């Protein structure tokens, strides 16, 4: 193997790792929602795309850097997620899976086509000054935007970890996830906790969208792809596990980047789906999932 090849491989891996952090943040939202409520958010990629559009619009019309519009988008997503859970999803919590699936499918259809109706089918990207910057570490070159996005994703994941382990509400949510009946018995307002959880999950994916727009331009058609990608990541990492989602994100990010280098680019998601099938069969609870969480 030539020196050049090894270098480009290392380059692809680092690129995959950086993108993978943003993937991980996106998947974190899905994982949190499923882990607590046992509801699979089939509208996840659609929410991601809305986050990307909001961030794009803030930059396009007000010149706001995505890193600064991100907190606002996260707050908006939290509010919308909270209301969505309260109004639509709560009545479906104990319904059969196929009914939940159809409900969220309807939401997804509405969201993605609203994007299409408002913004149109054209691809929308942003041009940041930092897009041409890069950091060098030895022979490796890191795109500045990817580095910034990955750092932001790590910070947000850290905040989330703090929320779930150090705050009263976060602990209460985990308690409700572990033992629904017990949480009711000790007087926790589980409905409210569920709404907060959905809000937090939505905020994660909104933030991930705001970061992703600095790396890839957005079209409405990306939505279904991101939903699938988020599924693959959380299954590989372990549905309901936060570290699993991040690890899965990194793994898929790297596998996509490496597959894109070694194989035809169109084959790169085949790699991810192959990985998903293997994990489902050998370790269906995912890499970091607990056995009983299945």
């Amino acid at each position, binding site marked *: 193997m030539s020196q050049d090849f090894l270098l480009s491989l290392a380059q692809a891996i680092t690129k995959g790792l950086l993108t993978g952090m943003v993937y991980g943040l996106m998947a974190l939202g899905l994982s949190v929602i499923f882990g607590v409520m046992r509801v*699979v958010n089939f509208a996840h990629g659609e929410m991601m795309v809305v986050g990307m559009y909001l961030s794009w619009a803030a930059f396009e019309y007000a010149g706001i850097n995505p890193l600064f519009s991100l907190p606002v988008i996260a707050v908006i997503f939290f509010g919308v997620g909270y209301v969505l859970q309260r109004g*639509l999803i709560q*009545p479906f919590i104990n*319904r059969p*899976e*196929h*009914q939940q*699936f*159809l*409900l969220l*499918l*309807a*939401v*997804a*259809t*509405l969201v*993605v*086509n*609203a*994007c*299409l*109706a408002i913004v*149109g*089918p054209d691809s929308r990207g942003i041009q940041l000054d930092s897009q041409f910057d890069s950091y060098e570490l030895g022979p490796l070159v890191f795109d500045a935007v990817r580095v910034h996005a990955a750092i932001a994703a790590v910070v947000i994941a850290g905040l989330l970890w703090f929320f779930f382990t150090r705050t009263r509400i976060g602990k209460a949510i985990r308690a409700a996830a572990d033992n629904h009946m017990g949480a009711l018995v000790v007087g926790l307002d589980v409905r409210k906790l569920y709404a907060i959880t959905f809000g937090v999950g939505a905020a994660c994916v909104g933030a991930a969208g705001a970061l992703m727009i600095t790396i890839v331009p957005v079209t*409405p058609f990306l939505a*279904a792809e991101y939903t*699938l990608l988020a*599924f*693959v990541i959380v*299954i590989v990492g372990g*549905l309901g596990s936060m570290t699993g989602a991040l690890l899965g994100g990194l793994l898929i990010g790297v596998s996509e980047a490496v597959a894109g280098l070694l194989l*035809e680019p*169109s*084959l790169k*998601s*085949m790699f991810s*789906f*192959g990985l*998903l*099938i293997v994990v*489902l*069969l050998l370790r*269906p609870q995912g890499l970091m999932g607990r056995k009983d969480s*299945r």
Partner: protein
Amino acid sequence: MKTRALVTLAALLVFLVAAPAFLGGYALSVLILVLYFAYVGQAWNIMMGFAGQLSLGHALYAGLGGYVAAGLYTHYGIGPWAGVFVAVAAAVVAGGVVGALGFRFSLAGVYFALLTIAFAEFTRIGFDNWAWAGGSGGMFLKVERGVSDLVNLRGGPTMFYYVILAMAVGIFVLCRLLLESRLGRYWLAIREDAEAAQAVGVPVFWCKMLAVTISAALTALAGVWNAFYYNNLFPETAFAMGRSIEMTLSPIIGGLGTLFGPLVGAVVLTGLGELFTDISDQFHIPGLKQIFYGLALLVIIMYRPAGVWPWLAARLGFTERDK
């Protein structure tokens, strides 16, 4: 079934058989869509509605069936009536693999559904890069105008209408027989409580395998019909997740696990779809039709979560003996 229901069913059948004589081209094409969705919905219903196994990757079987029959026809001149056996065999093998892996490792619910999606996507990307099948450029069947060749399934809409009508009637009868059979009872037992079924001696694994393979085989037939009706196949649409989801809608909206659900759901959804196309054509806003469609799905799932048919059947005074 009450006499009233039987009379209605007979009247419906007479109407459907006579329809091409008095319906125009557009109405007939809509009716073809209804029957197609009723058929694939019923095929999917066997797996989810009867046996309780959620598949969101049924496009895999339809796509495989279509590609195999179309490929044999265009590459080797083997007609669809012979090719259909190979197509069904391919789908049965695919269903068997998905089922064996999923059920052996006891994946259930969402996890099984994701496995089915993964296999469909995997196959889609494979066909995208497979030259024999035309790759992402697609596979095309030769269009011959003015012929009505039932042997090679080359002909006009009326011929395809009768073929899909026969398929829809056939699958309806088959599903009724299945439900009455021992296997059907086993399926319902598994759907309601797989562990209890296992405990009383139901061969759960093999019953689930039969559900997935029968469903896959019947779905492949729809795929063959679809390929010859539209004369083209693209991996992006034939194996798309959207195609799989489309197949689940009629039975869920109509009433999961019921015999009439898929048909009622297909009528409701196709009707709404055509209506929304008409309305949104006035406005020229992209995605408007889908927005209406999404709203309709939302309203139905919120207010009739068990489907339209059980509610409608009670309203019409038919006895509801479907489970």
